[in-house]
């Protein structure tokens, strides 16, 4: 997840538990990275252009990243322990493939979702074949 034009790019990143994410600084200014999320509490001191820091995420959950000196910079990393996860496109569509049939829980997360933990979940029964579900979300 890069830092470019004072933004985390991409703003949201989905990684599997145990992954390590690199944070290259592509800006001219220096950035720091911190997180007080339960899934990953860490703090990386300011580092400059063309430098990269890395961080491993061992606990599944949502990690909100901020830069200590640029309040408006936000980045989110979702650490999952399931392979069936995906980020929607700009139109809100995501396609999960190879999901085994049977009972499952679908969770929807969005940084501005108006719900505790910014996430809602519902139990679904997955049948074979392609299915499509539609979730209506209240945003902040």
């Amino acid at each position, binding site marked *: 997840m890069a830092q470019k034009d004072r933004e985390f790019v991409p703003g949201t990143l989905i990684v599997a538990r145990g992954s390590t994410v690199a944070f290259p600084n592509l800006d001219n200014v220096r950035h720091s990275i*911190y997180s*007080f999320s339960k899934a990953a*509490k860490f703090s990386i001191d300011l580092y400059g252009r063309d430098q990269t820091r890395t961080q491993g995420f061992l606990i599944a959950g949502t990690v*909100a*990243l*901020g*830069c*200590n000196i640029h*309040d*408006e*910079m*936000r980045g989110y990393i979702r650490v999952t322990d399931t392979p069936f996860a995906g980020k929607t496109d700009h139109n809100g569509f995501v396609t999960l493939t190879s999901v085994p049939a049977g009972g499952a829980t679908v969770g929807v997360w969005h*940084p501005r979702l108006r719900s*505790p933990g*910014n996430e809602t979940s519902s139990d679904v029964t997955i049948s074979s074949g392609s299915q499509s579900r539609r979730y209506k979300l209240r945003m*902040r």
Partner: protein
Amino acid sequence: MTRAFRTFDKLRFGSLKLRIASLYAGLFALVLAVVVLVAGNALSRFGEASATRDLESNARVFDEILELRARQLRRSSEVLSRDFGFREAVATNDAITIDSALESLKSRSDANAAFVIGVDGKLLASGDARIGNPDALWYPLDEGQQRGIIAVGGELALAAASPVEVPDTIGWLVLAQPLDKAELDRLAKLAAVDVEARVMLPAAMPDWMLSAPNDSVFQRAEGQSTLFHVSPLPALQDDLKPRLVLQHSLDASLAQYTRLQIWLVALAIAAVLFVIALSWRVARTVTGPLQKLDEATRAISEGRVFELKAETDDEIGRLADSFNKMSSAIEDRERKIIHVGLHDGLTGLPNRKLFVEQLDQAVRRLDDSGRLMVVYADLDDFKVVNDTLGHPAGDRLLCDVAAHLRENLPDALVARLGGDEFALLIDNLGSDRSLAAIASEILVCFQRSLMIDGQLAESSASLGIAVAPGDGRDGTVLMKNADLALYRAKSEGKAAYHFFEPSLDEEARKRRQMELDMRMALRDGGFELYYQPLYGAVEEELKGFEALIRWFHPELGFISPAEFIPLAEETGLIIPIGEWVLREACQQAATWPGELSVAVNISPKQFASPGLSQTIMQALAHGELSPKRLELEITESIFIANVEKTLSTLHSLRALGVRIALDDFGTGYSSLSYLRSFPFDKVKIDRSFVQAISKEVNAHAVIRAITTLAEALGMETLAEGVEQEDQLEVLRREGCRYIQGYLFGKPTPAADLGNIFGDVNDKSKRLSA
């Protein structure tokens, strides 16, 4: 308004001054009261309006102050909420660190409550603040509201919130400052006017406040008038609907205007008092002169002389001037009236009233050695002058006499008592002066002759004189005595004076008694008629009788007609006496045989009385006597007065058919012209001529002249007082037709006449034989 004035006019003030003063002062006070009322009202209104305006602007100021406060709070909270360490503590839920940070923030920022609410609505840290219902805060906070009212420990507080972001918002740091009374009072002090501010919840608000419109000023009177302004405040807690209530005591703000109004009223009262004093002064300048005029009028009505001073040349001055003129005119007229009242209008001499006054004074002043003379004067025969020459001539004669008296008797007070009567008062007579000489002098003064319209009028007077103190020490007595003396002078013949003697008093008393006795005699039949025969010399027979009155007084016996007839003439009793004589004579004559006539004397006064003809007709009718048997005897004196009137009376008597004889011919005023002027039936030759026959040689000639004249005029003649044979002889020879006298018979009572009828005829026969 008109009626108000009329009502004012009806008020009784008793003083014009008071009336003018109260009218003007009253009007002024009325106008001033209206002005003060209007001005006071306007002041109140202005005070209210400006208080309202002030409160409105105060409300805006309050909003701004609260906003400012909240911003400050927020800045304070923001400092902490952005602190990395604090954020970390919040994110890691490090309560101890958070509390310590909050504690230091509170002390730094004058806030009394600081706490953190998590994004899940849970209270993460509250320090010691007692937040009742954090959930209620969550929604506004989540909506992004940064400022508002919250409740802390049951108290309302102003709060500001800032998010704690890591970088997502995990909660809000809320910093609150209490909005208790002390704090609000502190804020209120910043306001321009004295306001009381409260932040209230609807539950604590009365209904009228709840229903009042927001953000506008309204007035409410509860004991005292108060202005209210209610505006909603933003709440940071969704179960709160706080209101900012500003109130301002209108009475207090109007108090300063009230002071102004009191000043205004005081000023008005002072002005009214001033006007009262002024109009009192003005009224006094009007009524002062009126009062003086009133005083002057009273003085004049009391007979005092009073001169008003004309101090100014305005209406008042002119009034004083006119008043003085009127006053002097009244005085003049009064003098004239007094003069007229005390003086005779014709001659200008003092009148009786003034004379009596002066006489009384003179008598009082009389000392022991002094004497004083009162003269009563009566013009002789003045009536004749009036009757013959007319009243204007008489008046001129009176004036002439008056002027002459005044001129010639400068020491005497001359007065005219009325008619032809004068009175003189001569004072300061020494004991040496001859009273008789003075009397003569006065007598001469009355003797005037005056040509009036070509005719000579002559005057003389009779004087009666009384002298004080001998004849009386009192004016009234003196005048009475002078009058008595005058009476005597008149009766003794005219153009003479007579001094008072005490015997005159007695005579006067006797006259009065005799008058009374005559009245009684007339009533009680005390008079009697005697009849004296009239004898026809040619026919030698009885022709008739002359009726003669006789009076036998019950006490005094026989009283001569010469004594009582003049008094009867004087008192007017002659009229009823004459009437009685006529009736009695006619009645008696009717009983006589044949054509015997009766002759009755008619006195001058009786002749002049208007009822004579009537009386004669009644007497004839009563006695059933033929008029030709009645003969009226009149004297020449009736011609002295108005000749024309006398003649007309004679003719009217003649028309009755009675005969008329002229009595006492040849005496007194005898004038042949009288004989020519009226055809008398008979002329009676006075006894003096008859008595002269025996003594005087030419008596025969006189008698013959009379008889010849009478015969020529167709009148019969009768001789009176024939007592002797030789007289009868002469008379008969000289042609006298009738004889009367003792020779033929005395006056005889009616009862004895029967004998005479025969006797007389016998005697005449005997004489003629």
